């Protein structure tokens, strides 16, 4: 009886391990999990930005729902990926509307990417380095493996 229970438990654990392994590998193929930032539930975060043709000095963000104190970050579009950071604005926890993110330099790409990053390290200091993604405290928010970000067209 006791032996059967041990064999049963061993079989269950093995099955679970196999399932977990297969599932993990299937997930790994679908996503680049290494670059997932701070994960939040969909209802706790929101970012609404419209296209702004001709925008040169700033980007207007119509609505932000931040789960914590956060950063609005504007990147140049680098072939569909966030490129050089050109704008930064700190936002308080909760909902904010009609925000304007000033741009530090001239936009050279047809689109910019606006992303919402956490402010989890030293408060008020933006601490994020794409080359040291894992160790950076102010990573971008993610919902269901997708970054909380918007591509905004700025070309005339």
């Amino acid at each position, binding site marked *: 009886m006791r032996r059967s229970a041990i064999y049963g438990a061993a079989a269950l654990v093995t099955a679970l391990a196999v399932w977990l*392994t297969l599932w*993990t*590998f299937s*997930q*790994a193929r679908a*996503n680049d*999990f*290494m670059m*997932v*930032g*701070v*994960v*939040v*539930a969909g209802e*706790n975060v929101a970012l609404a930005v419209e296209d702004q043709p001709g925008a040169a000095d700033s980007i207007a963000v119509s609505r932000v729902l931040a*789960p*914590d104190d956060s950063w609005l970050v504007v990147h140049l579009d680098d072939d569909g990926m966030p490129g050089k950071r050109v704008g930064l604005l700190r936002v308080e926890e909760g909902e904010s509307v009609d925000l304007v993110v000033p741009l530090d330099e001239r936009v050279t790409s047809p689109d910019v990417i606006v992303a919402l990053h*956490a402010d*989890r*390290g030293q408060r008020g200091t933006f601490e994020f380095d794409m080359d040291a993604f*894992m*160790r950076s*405290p102010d*990573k971008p*928010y*993610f919902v*269901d*493996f997708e970054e909380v970000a918007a591509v905004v067209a700025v070309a005339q």
Partner: protein
Amino acid sequence: MENTMVREHSPDVSASEAVFGVTGMTCASCVAVIEKTLARMPGVLSANVNLASERLTVSYDPAQIDEPGIAAAVKAAGYEATPLGARSSAHTGGGTSTGSARVTLGVTGMTCSSCQAVIERTLAKVHGVSEAVVNLAAETATVTFDTDVVSVDELIGSVIEAGYGAVVLPDAEEAGGESARDLQREAQERHTRHQRNLLILSASLAIPAFVFTMVPPFMDVIPVVFSTWLANTFGGAWDPHMVMKYIGLVLATPVQFIAGAQFYRGFWHAIKQRMGNMDTLIALGTSAAYFYSLAATFWLVEEPVFYEVAAMLITFVIFGKLLEARAKGRTGDAIKKLMGLAAKTARVVRGGVEADIPVEQVVAGDVVVVRPGDKVPVDGVIVEGSSSVDESMLTGESIPVEKHEGDTVIGATINKLGSFKFRATKVGKDTALAQIIKLVEEAQGSKAPIQRFADYISSYFVPAVVLLAIVTFAVWLFLGPTLFPDALDGFTPFVKALLVGTAVLVIACPCALGLATPTAIMVGTGKGAENGVLIKSGEALETTHKTSAIVFDKTGTLTHGKPVVTEYEPFGDAIGREEFFRLAAALERSSEHPLAEAIVNHAKETGVELPQVSGFAAVPGHGVEGLVDGRSVVLGNRKLMGREGIDISPWAARIEQLEGEGKTVMLTAVDGVPAGLIAVADTLKENSREAVERLREMGVEVYMITGDNRLTAEAIAAQAGIPADHVLAEVLPEHKAAEVGKLQGRGLSVAMVGDGINDTPALAQADIGIAMGAGTDVAMETGGIVLMKDDLRDVVTAIELSRATIRRIRWNFVWALGYNSLGIPIAALGLLRPELAGGAMALSSVSVVTSSLLLRRFKPSLRKAA
């Protein structure tokens, strides 16, 4: 380091001797301080301090000073002296005899030789304990203590206080043996069960901790998936990188503080004894990894964590210890096998009725019935019937031994085809089997001198390793970025230094070193018992391998010790060969001379009918005479023939020839006419020559010692293959020890082989005494090695086994030290992760135990040839 200060004193002073345990000494100067202090005290006759054992032995006049006074003087000198009781008295017996007793405790929870040292030191510090010897492999502690000062409960309490488990093992084994070790076995099983549970706990947490944090893609996917689940379930924002740290923390914490608690306990107890052990290294190593990770989780959040290192390390160490315990269990197989030999029941005749009863209920004097195929339950003497008995389980002798009325039978041997009844003479703990088990157990619990080497190294190893780990850490921290910038593996210098230091700490653990000797001794002594060679101590086993000369006592050792008729020949045709022997044997039946017994036995064996004798008379120093079948028969030496006026000169040459062969020749005359001669001699045992040849091949000088005259001695020696210049003849029993001493004086390591009856001083004088025939109590008590049967080939077996064991111990040292010597530089160079170092460390102990187990394949060379 041992010194003595002696003061001249009058021989009629009534002196006492007291032994103290001394603490606080650090070097030879402390020894000198204490001895000089005491030498100045009135009443102190001599003071002897042993720095190594931390013992002070003081001889004093109790009329002038007492033990507290001596202790106070030592204290005033800056040291602590604990009286360990009076050891002995000198001169006129002024000392007191204390109630000294010895107890064997089964100890659980030891992990390495340092634990052994911790327990020995703990017990030695207990007031009233004079000696404590801990056997790591057998998991026992043998304590000699003063029952007036300390109780067994207090001894157990002190072991438990030191962080280990202890139970009393019954001193003497019952014949059934099984119950005697139950307490220890239970304790060991409980300990093993507990360790197994801890292993399941730690493995089930450490493996996921390792996989989730170190193995891609698990390390990428699991934290993200878990973070998503947390965010969707509880809300809030979850950084997978931090979640991975939390997962590590949650999984590693129970491992660190539940499974790893034993290492902290051991660490703490070692610290209390100002010592280091394996627990010290594991506790330090895992704590470094765990607490650094804790800091990296909550404060230094940008730094990586190493929870899996600590958890896996603990898991590996527990796993290794379990493997080691399993292998260690097999080193005691010989004892288990011996215990399993005992019969469970006996069929005894009580009130005229045969009844089966448990063997424990058999008492001396019971008549026991043994049927074909039965196991002989206890020792005794056959009173009815006969049979052949298989004694191979005790003596290694494969041929069954014929047993008749009056012969002794040994418990645990197996009756073959016949039936017999015997009167029980020895039961319970007095049986030969119980004595053998006790003897082997004592041997397995004893410390071989070679172990001092391991103890010495171990005592310095742990502090040295901690120091080395600190130096390694500092080098990597301060010089790493400059010297090995590419070897940092992306870590900060601090993190890399921490990992490397931890690996050094863990890989250098000297656990394997502590097991090298005792496991080999256990297997070696057990293997000896299996082959009918009882080795009484680790020291005996070790000393035997050095044997360069072996001295055999002649009578009863090289020879059967019982004269037998070798030839009988008629003098001419006057009287026939068988007729003269019949008349001579008939006459000898009335004699009590040992040579007469040989002639009568021969007559019985050859079926000669012996007629009645009248007018029998013994002529002292000459022989015997009497009337047989109406004929006058005389039998004796030349002097008797001369007295009777019988001329034997025609046969003088033949007589001298036989005497030259070491035989005693008896002459017979019938009715005044020379009738014939009977030659009687103590013959060589069948295997003596083979054993001597093999010993000489092995490079051992073989000598024979005897009280016989040189002519007889050399004749026997020649038959055995011993050269004449190696014959020590005409040596009185009391001078045999001196002869052994002379050989030792030539620098030879001498083994003396005798029957333990009249050669006890020689056996004691020899470097190793080998007593033949375990049947006698004397033999069991004499010599370092006891041979179960009268077969000299077992002397060869004993030496071969000793050599094999010492070779194995040396190999074990090579394994253990080689592993450390290789592992430390590899770890210090940053080429070994700490958890792998933990695994390797644990496996090193297993490899040493396994190496010792290889001794189980030992086979005596002579038996193989046979």
